């Protein structure tokens, strides 16, 4: 028996099997509701191209829409024009729209906005900390937060227009 081979093999095999087994506990599609009803994690992020910061705490009292996106993400490009078209009407009524650039370079994010339209500021998340706080599993993901700072709705994948509008209308 070659113990070195056995030990190295065990070190690779055991964690792999354990991790895969733990994966069974969840349904990858059932996640959206986990964050709903939870207080939104605080953030204070730099705004792309402006050098200023926006913090969640400063937005108290106003509904917030957070849209995580990336230039390398195809569904993001598909939903983005609709968000750009929809945002101005709600911004007039006091809703704050914010994009969050996820695992991407600012230059590419700017290119994305040039191509698909820009209606609201984008926050940078260079360390990925904000995405982890929000439990972002992939992009796009969109969170709707009410004036008290509670997440009332989470969309995994592109937003569903009807539900999106209904959620915001209920908050206003």
């Amino acid at each position, binding site marked *: 028996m070659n113990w070195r081979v056995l030990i190295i093999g065990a070190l690779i095999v055991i964690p792999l099997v354990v991790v895969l087994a733990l994966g*069974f506990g969840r349904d990858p599609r059932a996640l959206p509701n986990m964050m709903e009803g939870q207080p939104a994690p605080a953030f204070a992020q730099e705004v792309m191209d402006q050098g200023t910061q926006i913090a969640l705490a400063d937005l108290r009292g106003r509904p917030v829409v957070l849209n995580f996106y990336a230039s390398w993400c195809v569904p993001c490009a598909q939903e983005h024009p609709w968000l750009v078209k929809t945002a101005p009407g709600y911004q007039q009524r006091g809703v704050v729209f914010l994009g969050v650039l996820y695992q991407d370079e600012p230059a590419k994010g700017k290119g994305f906005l040039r*191509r698909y339209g820009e209606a609201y500021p984008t926050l940078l998340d260079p360390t990925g900390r904000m995405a982890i706080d929000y439990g972002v599993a992939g992009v796009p993901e969109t969170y709707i937060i009410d004036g008290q700072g509670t997440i009332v709705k989470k969309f995994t994948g592109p937003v569903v227009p009807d539900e999106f509008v209904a959620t915001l209308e209920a908050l206003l």
Partner: protein
Amino acid sequence: MISLLGRAAILVALAACVVGAIAGIWGGVTRSAEAARWSRWMAWAFFAAVAAATGLMEYALLTHDFSVHYVTEVGSRSSPTWVSIVSLWSSLEGSILFWAFVLGVYAAGQAWWTRSRYPEHSAYAMGMTLLVGVFFCYLVAGVANPFTLVDPAPADGPGPNPLLQNHILMVIHPPALYLGYVGMTVPFAMGAAALLAGRITPSWSRALRNAMLVPWGFLTAGIILGGWWSYDVLGWGGYWAWDPVENASLLPWLTSTAFVHSAMLMERKDQLKGWTLTLLMASFLLTILGTFMTRSGVFNSVHSFTQTPIGPVFLAFLALCLVFSVVLLAARIDKLTPPQEGLSGPASRDTAFLAQNLVFAALTFTVLLGTVWPLLNEAMSGEQISVGEPYFNKWGVPLGFLIVFLMGVGPALPWGRASGSAVVQRFLVPLGVAAVVVGGSLAFGLRQPWPIAVFAMSGFALVVSLQEMAAPGLARWRGKGGSLVGAMLEGTLRTRRRQAGYVVHLGVILVAIGVAASSGWRHVHELTLVEGQTGQAGRYTLTYLGHELEREAHRTASVARFHVAVDDRELGVLSPRMNNYEAMGRPLPSPDVRSVPAEDLYLSLVQVDPKSGTVSVQAVIQPMVWWIWVGGLVMAVGTVLAAWPSRPGASRKAGAPTGAPAGAEGAA
């Protein structure tokens, strides 16, 4: 009726596998020729029974027999005939039946191939293959039984997943991938046989490599076809997205490619036996992991089917295989490996092989880590993250570049110890070509470092490959005289496996060039046009001619037509479509592509708005995508040439009379 017959056929197949596995392993332990013969007969029986079951299922699908459970899941009276046929592998239970069928084909092939050869190992190997067969027959007979009776039978069914019936490539991409995945069972069984027997003979190690070439070729074809399918169907203009399931097919490809190379070192120099067998076992284990990823629903991916009871059973099988392989390797590896002499010099082909193996191992590890990291992270911190394309590109691009680099440098180095000046001399011409490529790219106005580096390395590797391919013929001509053409032809034909290896390398070079160019200079334009309006996408002028609604039995489609021109040259009409399947809520874009060697123009509909009469279309312009598909074809041709069975003894005579110390199996 079919339901009953199908279940009976599967039970016969299961019984044949059980008996054959016991007989094979018994035959290996006792060296009983009688037991070995029994295991071969059982392999035939397994093949016959599982082929019957598959035939019955096809019959049920074609006759829309909705009393069969699987047909109620994927069948539909409105599906065209070809969709009904391929429905066999469009959903979970059917694809596992198909898996068992392919395994039956391989088992029968293995039984025939080893019927009068390799007495020391063939019984063990047959037994191991059938042992894997036991598991898959058990799946089909039990948790994933597609033949369950449905009573009363419904009148019609939903048809297969629209994404899968959207394109004709669905007919060949999954079978190619399955032939690759399932075929890994045979070399795995043969490697396990070498460990069980505690000995590896030169003829067995050559057999191992040949057994790997077949599934390797299918896996390569499956991966390239998968890229093509995703490019032609998914509508985002890309061919590779680092999706967990794409990664799952890449992982065994990486280890098996490494194996094909290190097996040459094993065959030629009796070195690296433990490492080579580890790669062999890993290739099989990664195919099982890949299937687990596809089928269990643990990973979120376009390919994932739903959450199923098969997951836990599959995981248990995977765990069992992993433990078995590790224990077997640990127990027997010292028996196989005699004390080794060290590798030759730093600048030798041996070292290049070793470096190549390390790069492939590193790439495998990188991709595996990136693929399971989201799960790992969630297990540790409870948080969900996603490892996106940036991670894979960050690590994959340099490692991929290293592979092209080694593919150029390795074959230019001689086996064994080399003198410095000889090495420099061999590098002069290829290096010159690489320099010309860099200069040309810069003069052409190209500035992206990675793609230019890949071009240069590809030029280098191309020259080396062509030199190596010509070497046997040239040596013959110099030695014997006569006509140059005749000598070249003779030299080439006599070194078929070596030539085949370099043909595969040429294919890889074409793919590398295509990937570097298309990802380095990809441009995306989005246009919104009303009928008759003209817009500009790069140098292309697009005129929107209007759209029609097309009705077919199983779908409706909005087909938009665009007139395409460059400057004043007309290039014709492209018709991207938006397909609507009743079973699916959202429309599926179906792009239209103008593909020429220089550049692809790829149009994909984003939105058709009948109210305002506008259409939004995404135009993706990527250079040299075409080269990827052609490169894949060249690789396939090379693999067929390499794996083609030779006349007994012919391969030994083929030692090339060249000046270079490279023999018949100089490359692959």
